[in-house]
């Protein structure tokens, strides 16, 4: 018999094996690490203000926080030690520079000043800034409702894939006329 996608997903590989074998089917999915600390209220306010400058609202697109960015990134900080350090450093740096230059927390300065401070952080600490920017992008472009707005179809592998035009041999008309093009040895 020919296997269908459904058969394959339903059985994994176990049914193809000799019953005498022990198949240790173990995919070791990504493990969530223990909490490495939650954002403070101040940090959360700074985060919201910062990510809404990184991905602002446009005529038809929501801002990063409107798309759930604050909750998403807060979870990253809590559970992903590889990103949490730089993320927190970015928030602290933004808040400190706002206090220093404008005597106010980052979320209370005007938009122009926020953009200026984000730009300064990008220049002075590119790696730290990149973590904030890329985490914002991650929070945004992993959301199915954003996919709808940008026309991206996900095609999960437990559902049917896209329709694509079948291969058309006519595209090779020119190439079929060409002489051999490799060296004999």
């Amino acid at each position: 018999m020919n296997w269908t996608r459904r058969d394959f997903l339903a059985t994994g590989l176990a049914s193809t094996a000799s019953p005498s074998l022990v198949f240790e089917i173990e995919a070791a999915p990504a493990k969530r690490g223990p909490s490495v600390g939650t954002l403070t209220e101040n940090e959360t306010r700074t985060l919201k203000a910062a990510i809404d400058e990184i991905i602002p609202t446009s005529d038809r697109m929501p801002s990063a926080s409107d798309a759930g960015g604050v909750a998403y990134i807060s979870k990253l900080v809590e559970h992903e030690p590889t990103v949490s350090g730089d993320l927190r450093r970015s928030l602290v740096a933004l808040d400190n520079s706002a206090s220093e230059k404008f005597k106010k927390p980052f979320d209370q300065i005007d938009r122009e000043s926020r953009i200026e401070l984000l730009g300064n952080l990008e220049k002075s600490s590119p790696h730290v800034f990149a973590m904030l920017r890329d985490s914002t992008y991650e929070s945004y472009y992993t959301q199915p409702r954003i996919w709808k707005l940008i026309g991206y179809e996900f095609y999960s592998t437990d559902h049917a894939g896209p329709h694509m035009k079948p291969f058309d041999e006519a595209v090779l008309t020119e190439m079929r006329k060409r002489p051999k093009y490799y060296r004999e040895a």
Partner: protein
Amino acid sequence: MQQETADVLVIGAGAGGAALTKRLTDLGAKVVCLEQGGWVKPSDYPSTRPDWEIQIRRGAFNFSPNVRKRWEDYPVVETGTHPPDVLMFNAVGGSTHHWTGHFPRFHPSDFRVRTLDGVAEDWPISYQELEPYYEMNDCEMGVAGITGDPANPPRTKRPTPPLPLGTLGETIGRGFDKLGWYWWPSDNAIISQAYDNRPACELHGKCMFGCAIGSKASTDVTYWRKAVRKGAIVKPWSRVREITVDKQGKALGAIYYDRQGQLHEQLGRIVVVCGNGIGTPRLLLNSKSQVFPNGLANSSGLVGKNFMLHPFRFIEGVFEAPMNAYDGPFGIPAFSQQFYETDSKRNFLRGYSFLLERSFGPLHHAWGGFVNKPVPWGASHHEVMRRRFPHIIRISVLGEDLPEENNRVELDPEVKDSSGIPAPRVVYGYSENSLNMLEHGGAMARQALEAAGALEILDSGVIQPAFHLLGTARMGTDPKKSVVNGWHQTHDVKNLYLVDGSSFATSAAVNPTSTIGALALRAADGIWKNRRG
């Protein structure tokens, strides 16, 4: 605990170990394979999850063992003038869980580089000798493609018809035609029709992190399924510490750890190492003994030397029309070998392939795509994102790397894996030849994209080397200049064979998996024929 002696003990269940075991089992051998990883359940691939793209940066299916840090992974120390970002996957099926499925063959000239171009070393075998095994491997893995490519020797009708080219394939094809350059729909080890009890590709994409429906050929669903039915024994979660030898220098078997940290010994009349171009030299260098104080099979001093990676450069063209590069299998719909063979008018020897590759989804594009040019933040973000996604066609320039002794794999004096086994340290730098080749390839790729109608070009420049682990126990006729002979038998230990990318004498300018499989099938025939010798 010592276990029953196998006819052939295979270490490593990836592309080479799988093909070799299946063929040997068909011939009647009793094969036991030790694999440090486990079986991967297809439904655990990240392709059903909305955050599937984060695996590019982190997670259990990330391409780098240094990022994944699963139990079965070992750390790889990366150094040199161009420190590589080593990619591999440890599981039954090995790195075939994590590959495009692109299935090109070497050219005949790739086996005669010294004779034709005066560089590196000739292989002790020819394309003609390997050709029947390429055919056999194509049938076992399941290939989609079409015959007639004028830039390659003829081959038999492909097991399944070509996959869809997609808008991007047809667009770039027109660009190549306009320039008069050769191109062809690539062979892919991804079946376009049901084949060999596997379902046809449903064009979901995302299969760089594993194909959840078994249409892309990872060797756990191709060779291993059949080999196990025929009696081959795979022992997953078995991390080999060393190969043991007797006083005469004959290989006895392997000592390995299980996941509980218990030591076992598996004996084999013949031992075959299939651990990839880093894992294999690491194991040989870790198998020191009184008979072999410099590491096993290392009388030439070449174990770990001549490490080759394919030099890469990515060029992306931004088009007005949507290209939907995320639709269809990640495997390469088309390729061009216009600049494959040596041309004395250029400032480099040998050549390169253009791979027209599909891509990931919106997150990857926002992060910067393959060219590492992130979509800007702030007021212009949405506009630039709309312009780029999904409007990009990528051409990858894959160049031939030439062997150099200074590029090498050795043991790190300090870093160890979680079982306490010394980790490999990789030292690598691009040669001037490679850099000149990538410069030329970048300019030509730009030309092709512009001919196809690209409005804007994004260029990665020379990227951190990463792909394909080759050459560290190379094949040759002279025991002073090579580690194994033309049948993958080590010059020093007659019942020890090395069958994976490590035995490549040169790298060619194509992805190596098809050649690793063909070589493994041929090696199996040689091993079985000569077993009494």
